[in-house]
C-alpha cells in the first residue's frame, strides 16, 4: 500500500471498497493492530498503531476475513469466551452474551453447536460476538461475502444498529452494501486511496452526477449535455447534469416513455475511477 492518508470521525460506517488485492484487508489488519506496517504511520484516537497498540486494543474489536465461529462451540460459548478475552468475568460474560443473543433474536440457536448453523447464522454469531463488547471501533473484513441476499440484509440491520454508538470499518465487495450502509467510503485501487468521501463527495468526482434510464432503445439527446449509452437489455442510460434532468424528463413525459431518474450509483463511480471512466466521462 502507498499514499493512503485519511481521517475519520467518531461513529458511523466507513466502508473500504476495491478489487481483490487492492489492499483492503492489509489496511484493516494494520489498523486493527494485527499486522505490522513496513513503513508509514497510522493512528487511532491519536494512538500510534505500532508503538501504542496495546492501548488501541482496549477500544477495538475485529472480525477478520475468513474468521469462523469455532465449530464445536455454541453461540453462547463463543460470545462468552470472547468477552472473557476482553477481561469480563465469566458470569458477566455469560449474562451479556445471553442478553446480546436475545436482543438480536438469536436466543433459539444459543445452545446449538456452531457447526450446525447456516452460513448466515455463523456470520451473525461472529458479528454478535464483537457487538456484545464495549469496543468503540469495530473492524469487519468482508463479513457478508458469500451470503445470500436475505442473510446480508440481516447483517446490514446489525451494522446499522451498531453504527449509532460506534465507528465501524467495513470492507466489502458488494458496492450496493457500501452505498446502502456507509457514511464514508474509501476506494482502494492498486494499493492507493483512489477516492474518499461521502456518496455526495464521490458523485462530485463524476462529470455527470445523474443517471436516467429510459425504456426506449433508440433514444438520443438533442441539444442536451450528457452521454447516452444503449444498454443490451433495450434500455437507454443517460448520464447528465442536475440542470439537464428536468429538460430530459419533460421531453419524455409527452411521449409516454417510462424512465427512472437517480443519482449515479457507487457501481458507476467505481467503474469510472477504477477503470478510467468507461461510462461517465
Amino acid at each position: 500500500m502507498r499514499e493512503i492518508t485519511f481521517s475519520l470521525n467518531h461513529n458511523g460506517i466507513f466502508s473500504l471498497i476495491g478489487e481483490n488485492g487492492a489492499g483492503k484487508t492489509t489496511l484493516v489488519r494494520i489498523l486493527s493492530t494485527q499486522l505490522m506496517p513496513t513503513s508509514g504511520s497510522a493512528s487511532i484516537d491519536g494512538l500510534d498503531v505500532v508503538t501504542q497498540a496495546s492501548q488501541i486494543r482496549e477500544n477495538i474489536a475485529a472480525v477478520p476475513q475468513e474468521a469462523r465461529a469455532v465449530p464445536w462451540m455454541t453461540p453462547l460459548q463463543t460470545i462468552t469466551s470472547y468477552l472473557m478475552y476482553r477481561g469480563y468475568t465469566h458470569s458477566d460474560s455469560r449474562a451479556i452474551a445471553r442478553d446480546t443473543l436475545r436482543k438480536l433474536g438469536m436466543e433459539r440457536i444459543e445452545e446449538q453447536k456452531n457447526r450446525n448453523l447456516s452460513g448466515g447464522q455463523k456470520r451473525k454469531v461472529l458479528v454478535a460476538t464483537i457487538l456484545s463488547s464495549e469496543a468503540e471501533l469495530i473492524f469487519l473484513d468482508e463479513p457478508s461475502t458469500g451470503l445470500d441476499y436475505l442473510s446480508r440484509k440481516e447483517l446490514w440491520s446489525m451494522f446499522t444498529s451498531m453504527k449509532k454508538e460506534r465507528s465501524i470499518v467495513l470492507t466489502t465487495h458488494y458496492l450496493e452494501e457500501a452505498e446502502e450502509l456507509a457514511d464514508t467510503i474509501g476506494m482502494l485501487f492498486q494499493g492507493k486511496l483512489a477516492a474518499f468521501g461521502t456518496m455526495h463527495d464521490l458523485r462530485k468526482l463524476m462529470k455527470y452526477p445523474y443517471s436516467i434510464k429510459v425504456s426506449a432503445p433508440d433514444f438520443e439527446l438533442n441539444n442536451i449535455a450528457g452521454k447516452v449509452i444503449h444498454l443490451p437489455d433495450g434500455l437507454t442510460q443517460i448520464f447528465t447534469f442536475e440542470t439537464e434532468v428536468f429538460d430530459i424528463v419533460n421531453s419524455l413525459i409527452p411521449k409516454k416513455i417510462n424512465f427512472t431518474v437517480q443519482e449515479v450509483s457507487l457501481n458507476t463511480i467505481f467503474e469510472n475511477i477504477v477503470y478510467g471512466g468507461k461510462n461517465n466521462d
Partner: protein
Amino acid sequence: MIRHRGSQIYASILVNSLYAMVNYPIMLINTLLAPLSILAVVTFASHGTLLPVAAEGALIMNMVTSGTAMQGDLSHLKNDMRLQDMVVSSPTGPGSYVVGMALSQIVYSVPTISLLIIFNILFVHLSVVGAFVLFLDMAAIFTFAVSLGFFLSTISTDIIQTWAFSGILAPILTTIPPVYYPISYIPLPYRYLAYISPTTYAAQIAQSQAGFTVLTLTQTFEYWIILIAITVVFGYIALKRSRWRDV
C-alpha cells in the same frame, strides 16, 4: 472498565479444553491412548520389569506432548478459525493467551495425569522430596514444550505444516529418547545422541529420584542446569521471536 487477567486466561481454557471436552468427550480417550500405549508396549516387551520406569516416563511424555500439542491447537485457532487475530485485536496480550492455552493442555490431560499418578504411586514409590523433584522436572519440561509449541504455531502458515512439525517432534522428544527406558539400554556410541533431546535430561533426573539410575551430585546439577537453560532459551525465543502480530 476493570479487566480481569484471570478471565483472559480462563477464556483460553474454556475454548481449548473445557468446551471441547464437554462437546467432544472422545478427545479424552485420545489423550489417554498415546502415553498408555507406549507404556503397555514397554511393559509387555520387558516382561513387566520396565513398568515402573515407563510409568514415570509416561508422565514426562505426557507433559511434552501436552506442550507440543498446543502447537496444533494454536495453529488451528490462528490459521483456520482466525480466532487469534480476534484476540490480537482485543485487550488480551500474548502472555495471557499462551498461559491460558498452556493451562488448557494441562486441563485436557487431567484424566491422563490422574491415571499416571496412580500408576506411579503403585509402582514407583517416590519419597515426598522425590515427588517434589519430579513435579519440578515435569514443570520444566512442560514449559520447554509449551514455548516450543507456541513458537512453531506462530510461524506455521497452515495445519499441514503444523502436522509436519508434530510428526517430527513426537518421536524426537518422546519415543526415541530414553524416557520410557533406562539410558543404559542404548549402546555407547549412540548413547551420546540421546543427549540432544532435553527430555533425556528430564527423564534421567526423574529416574534417579526413583533409583532406576544413579546420577552423581555433579551430574544431577549439570542435568538441571542444562534442562533449565534449554527451557529459558526456548521461553525467550517464544517470547521474543514469536509473531503475535503478523509482519
